[in-house]
């Protein structure tokens, strides 16, 4: 039986903004159904990495492959059409759209569009608060509601690779539970996930592997339990307190 290509293969990638290089020589591989979590200090390139993979930023060196196909020159909108789904930091909702319209945009690709009715029902079922607010304009929602819409929008289609940037940022614990339940459901469907997160409680259950990104470089990779046992990392990034 032939070995399947990794869903995502990033080799030697550097990227940044203008003259500034933020991530350097990064290697990442994600197999089908795997959940990989990136941790590390703020401002050290986790968001930049996701934006480079999704195509919002161009990589200055290295290769990025989706399902074995090189996508370096492929634009973000085309990568999205190929099954890459990026839920960015800061939500990026469409402020003048209602909750429902925002969610429907998640089903924009033609194949997803046909099933949008069902998808909408499914997502509103996952996030009951949104069901009550479906005709409300996005810019009037609270932070937690906005995050639910952002995640929900990502659930409107079936991606092959899901990039999520700090889903629990700024949220209260109850909503974080709801959000991670949804992410767990996606993970159960064999979707490859690259998650950037600070909240370790959920990382341990969800992650197959954890990578530490420091100063734009991958400095450590391993199983969640290994990294949790490593005191320096545990305290700095994972919020695990010394017993």
């Amino acid at each position, binding site marked *: 039986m032939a070995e399947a290509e990794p869903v995502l293969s990033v080799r030697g990638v550097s990227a940044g903004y203008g003259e500034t290089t933020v991530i350097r020589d990064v290697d990442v591989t994600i197999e089908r159904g795997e959940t990989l979590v990136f941790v590390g200090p703020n401002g050290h390139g986790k968001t930049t990495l996701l934006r480079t993979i999704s*195509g919002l930023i161009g990589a200055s060196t290295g290769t990025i492959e989706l399902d074995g196909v090189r996508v370096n020159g492929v634009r973000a*909108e085309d990568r999205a059409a190929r099954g890459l789904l990026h839920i960015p930091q800061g939500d990026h909702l*469409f402020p*003048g759209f209602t909750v429902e319209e925002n969610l429907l*945009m998640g089903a924009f690709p033609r194949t997803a569009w046909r099933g949008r009715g069902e998808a909408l029902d499914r997502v509103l079922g996952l996030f009951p608060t949104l069901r009550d607010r479906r005709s409300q304009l996005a810019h009037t929602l609270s932070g937690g509601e906005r995050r639910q819409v952002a995640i929900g929008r990502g659930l409107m289609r079936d991606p092959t690779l899901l990039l999520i940037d700090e889903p629990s940022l700024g949220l209260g614990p109850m909503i974080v539970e709801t959000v991670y339940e949804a992410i767990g459901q996606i993970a159960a469907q064999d979707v490859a996930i690259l998650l950037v997160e600070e909240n370790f409680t959920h990382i341990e259950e969800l992650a197959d592997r954890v990578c530490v990104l420091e100063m734009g470089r991958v400095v450590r990779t391993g199983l969640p339990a290994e990294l949790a046992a490593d005191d320096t990392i545990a305290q700095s990034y994972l919020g695990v307190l010394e017993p």
Partner: protein
Amino acid sequence: MTDLISILVSTVVLGSIYGLVAIGMTLIYGILRVLDMSQGSMVMVGGFVGWAVMTSAGLSPLIAIVAAFAATFALGVITQLVSVQPLLGKRGVEFEMITFITTFAVAMIIANLALQIAGPSQRSVPPLVDGSVELYDGVSLSYQSMIMAGVAIALMVALGLYLTRSRYGMAIRAVAQDLDAARLQGVPIRRLFPIVMGFASALAGIAGVFLAAQYFASPSAGELPLLIALIVVVFGGLGSLPGALVAAYAIGLIQATASTLIGTTWSLPILYGVILLVLVVRPQGLFGQAREVRL
């Protein structure tokens, strides 16, 4: 009273024509973030196509409108591909300023080519439809005016429906709100942009046929519509379609009133005065958003 009716009639006619050009312009700004200075040329080209079809070829006004639509749509697409598309995502350039200049350059080229090919003289164009209805004491409303207003309003309504009810219409509205988010949902912006600009230019082209029928076709026929379109879109709020619609009739009203009561020479300075006032006091216009305007 005669004056009032006359003003209202002018308002409807002018407002509908301005609306077509302004809606195109504000659509282009909202979606592409380009202040398209070539919209005036599209009006001019539309007028010439209308003249050519109706006068030279002697075909019906309907064909003239369709031909003008097609010609200016193509021209708009080409303009976008040449003067906007290559600048998308380019580092080290101020996109909005540079595209202001490049679309301005395209307008320069088109106007000058028209001058070379057609000569500076004004070409009179037969009215689309003959006949009129007398409204009140010598003030008549021509059937042509009614048709123009009707077509303009119908087009604007159709556009509104498309934008709110269709998949790509929603995608276009999404792009106007958050480009990156739209891209991440898979919206093919590089294919969308030329089409949006083509369509907006085509609206101006149709306005051009109307203007030519009302007045005449000439290579310089695009200058005034461009300036007035700028005034209308700023008044309504750059990027806002309802704003452009309302502002078009408002500006039509102001111009009609000024022309009737004070005389045509002062109508343009007054309009400019209005726009300067708007830019100083409330630059986001009627329906624009303040946060996008201030430094």
